[in-house]
């Protein structure tokens, strides 16, 4: 039987790998791909866990209203190769967190980078 060959073309990525993301555990279907949101605030909690790492940031707007943003990042093993550690953030740290916002409008994002006084992690 003839085998349909799919090389390393864009379509090869589209067909199977389109669904095989870097963000491996469940993909990123619940996040917007074309938008980036940035919030500034104070770290409430940092979960250095599998399958994904989570950074919770308390954000205050100009009116003094408080909101909590949840940032989802990759698995610790992969993040560690880019300089992240379990001690990268601690409660009270000031951070600027950027990422793709959730499609459902909740205060959640897929982290692309986090800026701290000590530098940028991404």
């Amino acid at each position, binding site marked *: 039987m003839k*085998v349909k060959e799919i090389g390393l073309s864009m379509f090869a990525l589209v067909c*199977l790998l389109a669904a095989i993301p870097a963000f491996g*555990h469940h993909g990123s279907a619940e996040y917007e791909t074309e938008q980036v949101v940035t919030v500034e605030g104070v770290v409430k909690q940092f979960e250095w866990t599998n399958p994904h790492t989570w950074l919770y940031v308390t954000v205050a707007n100009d009116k003094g209203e408080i909101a909590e943003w949840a940032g989802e990042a990759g698995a610790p093993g992969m993040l560690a190769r880019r300089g992240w550690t379990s001690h990268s953030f601690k409660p009270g740290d000031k951070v600027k967190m950027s990422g793709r916002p959730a499609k459902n409008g909740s205060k959640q994002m897929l982290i692309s980078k986090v800026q701290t006084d000590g530098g940028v992690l991404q």
Partner: protein
Amino acid sequence: MVMLALATSILAQSSQPSKAHETLSGGPDSDIVGIWMPTLPRRVGGVNDTLLDPADKRTPDSAKVVPFLPEAEARYKAANPLDNTATHCLPPGISFLMLVAYPIAILRAPGRVVLVHEYMNQVRWIYTDGAGHPKDLEHTWLGDSVGKWDGDTLVVDTIGFNDKSWLDLHGMTHSDELHTVERFHRRGAVLEYSLTIEDPKTFSQPWTVHMDYEAKPDWKIAEFVCEENNKYK
């Protein structure tokens, strides 16, 4: 003893060749033992991976590339991405496991090749002792894999899958008649890989995806305990 042999073989990528290399015509540089990472330009959480991981899986051209049977294509289009087994910390399909952007350690021992995946702590045992597939297979998540050497290329034939996993994250289901053939060939610091997927209940013809891995001799395989903090159960 097996574990000792495996531990020895993993050292081969960056140090002296193991005894197993003696069977390779291409010498140590052709040995697939080592730690390998898919080379696709992805970044976790970054925006650069949008082409590879579209939020909207209904990529119109997908059906033109993947030779779905009509019913399988309908299932694919109707599926909810969050229903994939990996979301629930169950094993992913073989294609997803092999191509996801996490490192793989390939180890060799007499009569077998072992793939240790960082992703989900999965392990694949590929038997190269010539015994072939068992006659009465119990169907499992990753199936039964037998390998043979075509020169310096490892050719892996796998059958005996259950029908629970998805071949991707977005609804590419398969039947228990899934049959895959993989080829691993090292060319210097690159591991060339191909995966041919055949399933007469899902696809109208076999189809093949090619992909390269990059050698990462200094990396270690990290722990990945999916159940630890899975918020998508």
